[in-house]
């Protein structure tokens, strides 16, 4: 039974530990919303209320539209391969003999190593002259893209690094979900005469769908917040081609000190995240088989 806490207990268990949460989480969220209705520029001590002008300006600005498009492109082409690759890797991993499980550790290593450092390394690997990737393409007589200076290729560089970081992580989740499916379900499918692809389509994919949904949402959130690989590899360039919403937020707030626009943008990112989080919580209640 829950007990009614005394004043002293409340102070110790709730009030004190809550202070940092209030000061550095709840208040900032509220203040951000408030600042988004002002024209504060960080330097000047005064500011004016401008209503929803920051939002309307953002929605009509070319910068924002491009950043939104880049974010959507980046997110879509990162998340889909992460999910597909993660699923296939997991199917493979679960078929593997126990003594080969060390491969799992290799797949997961990118998630642990610092993305800043590894992006520096990737920058050299993608170096269009001396990087090994173009060297290999050269040997194969394939076209050698200017990975970091061509707008499309630059975006794909970011995407590849993002996939590299997260695919093994997704595979772990899928692998767990697959391991929880009782073996007898596959035996039933054997007796009912399913081919291997029918098993994947009718049994495997539907049964891991809660995991898939969860991973899709988490990965979208991850992509919305992607920063390290962009700042190291392209700094949003060339010509803004890899500027995502978050990167634009950083530029508006911490380069141009347009705090009103920046917080408005951060509220937009927050609303997108909140919608996704809401979907994920709703769906996870609906679709749990185990």
């Amino acid at each position: 039974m829950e007990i009614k806490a005394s004043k002293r207990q409340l102070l110790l268990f709730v009030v004190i530990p809550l202070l940092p949460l209030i000061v550095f989480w709840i208040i900032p969220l509220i203040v951000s919303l408030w600042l988004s209705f002002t024209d504060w520029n960080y330097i000047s001590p005064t500011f004016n209320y401008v209503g929803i002008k920051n939002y309307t300006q953002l929605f009509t600005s070319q910068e924002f539209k491009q950043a939104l498009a880049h974010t959507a492109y980046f997110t879509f082409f990162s998340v889909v391969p992460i999910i597909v690759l993660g699923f296939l890797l997991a199917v493979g991993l679960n078929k593997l003999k126990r003594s080969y499980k060390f491969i799992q550790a290799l797949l997961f290593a990118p998630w642990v190593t610092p993305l800043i450092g590894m992006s520096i390394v990737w920058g050299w690997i993608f170096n269009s002259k001396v990087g090994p990737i173009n060297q290999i393409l050269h040997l194969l007589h394939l076209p050698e893209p200017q990975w970091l200076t061509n707008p499309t290729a630059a975006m794909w560089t970011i995407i590849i690094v993002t996939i590299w970081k997260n695919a093994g992580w997704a595979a772990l989740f899928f692998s767990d979900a697959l391991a929880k499916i009782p073996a007898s379900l596959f035996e039933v499918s054997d007796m009912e005469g399913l081919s291997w692809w029918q098993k994947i389509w009718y049994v495997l994919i539907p049964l891991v769908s809660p995991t898939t949904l969860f991973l899709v949402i988490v990965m979208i959130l991850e992509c919305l917040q992607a920063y390290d690989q962009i700042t190291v590899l392209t700094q949003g360039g060339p010509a803004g081609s890899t500027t995502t919403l978050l990167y634009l937020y950083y530029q508006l707030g911490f380069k141009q000190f347009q705090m009103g626009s920046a917080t408005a943008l951060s509220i937009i990112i927050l609303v997108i995240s909140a919608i996704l989080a809401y979907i994920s919580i709703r769906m996870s209640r609906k679709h749990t088989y185990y």
Partner: protein
Amino acid sequence: MDLIELKRINKQYENKEKVIEDFDLNIQKGDFTVFLGPSGCGKSTLLRMIAGLEKISAGELLINGELQNNLPPKERDIAMVFQNYALYPHMSVEKNMGFGLKMRGIDKQVIKQKVADAAKILNLTDYLDKFPGNLSGGQQQRVALGRAIVRESEIYLMDEPLSNLDAKLRAVMREEIVTLHNQMAATTIYVTHDQTEAMTMADRIVILNHGDIQQIGSPKEVYQRPQNMFVASFIGIPPMNLIPLKNVAGKFYLEDAELSLKADIDQQLVFGVRPEDAFVDESAPLKMKVTYIEDMGADRYVHGLVNGTKFTLRDSSVNDYQVDQEIGVGFTAQQVSFFDQVSTNRVEDNLWK
């Protein structure tokens, strides 16, 4: 011709001892055969080899005279019911039952009809739109049965299908399964470690231990004429009392009482009698010291020690017995069994002089 023939079947899991060795068994069309044995004795292994879910290491499996060893499960025309039901959690009851047919490319209308028929038999009509997660254990079990029924296979395999249900529901389902089997004139192999299930459902019981057949027979046969001491002590609740006889130069003594038997002079025999064939008889020379009385309502089991060996008899008299009391034990001479102590096999048959 027998429907299913197992010829010198062997099974060895990777890097392990043989689980099944040179197993022979024939099963006739229409029979309800029960594999009964303690857990770990290889019942599931046998069933899964018949289903095609487990490779046969050596030997031949014939169905309708045709070799099955290398056929995948789906080509064997066998339906199986699993212990944990193995229902697809993401499909409704209707989809679950019809899925096997759908995968065989059967017409949608036909599937619907067959599922509806099966659901009617199993009282599932109201649940067709539900998902397995929202059903009770007994209902899930019915869905699993229904899924097997709609396949209209020649052979049904069931691996401990009732073991996850409570006692009351088990009794109900036992009857339902037997009724279904009879209605469909199917051939069923049913695996269990529960002798009540075996005794109440089987046409023929195959008693297994360590992968070997101990006895094959009707419930009555295995109960009344156990072929060896394992069966004698495995079947029956409580099981048959077994007491070694003393052999003094060809004369056989049950404790102090001589039994006049015609047996070999140097044979070592074990005497067996079921609790219900023993009774209290104060004049009998065989004495038992009472240790515990188990009242079952209509009658009771009197447990005790005969010279250190455990012994149980069923008693329906109104007499009062005390713990530590010594009572005489009598038995019906025609209802006892004798086993060879060395081979543990039953000694045939009428040993009485």
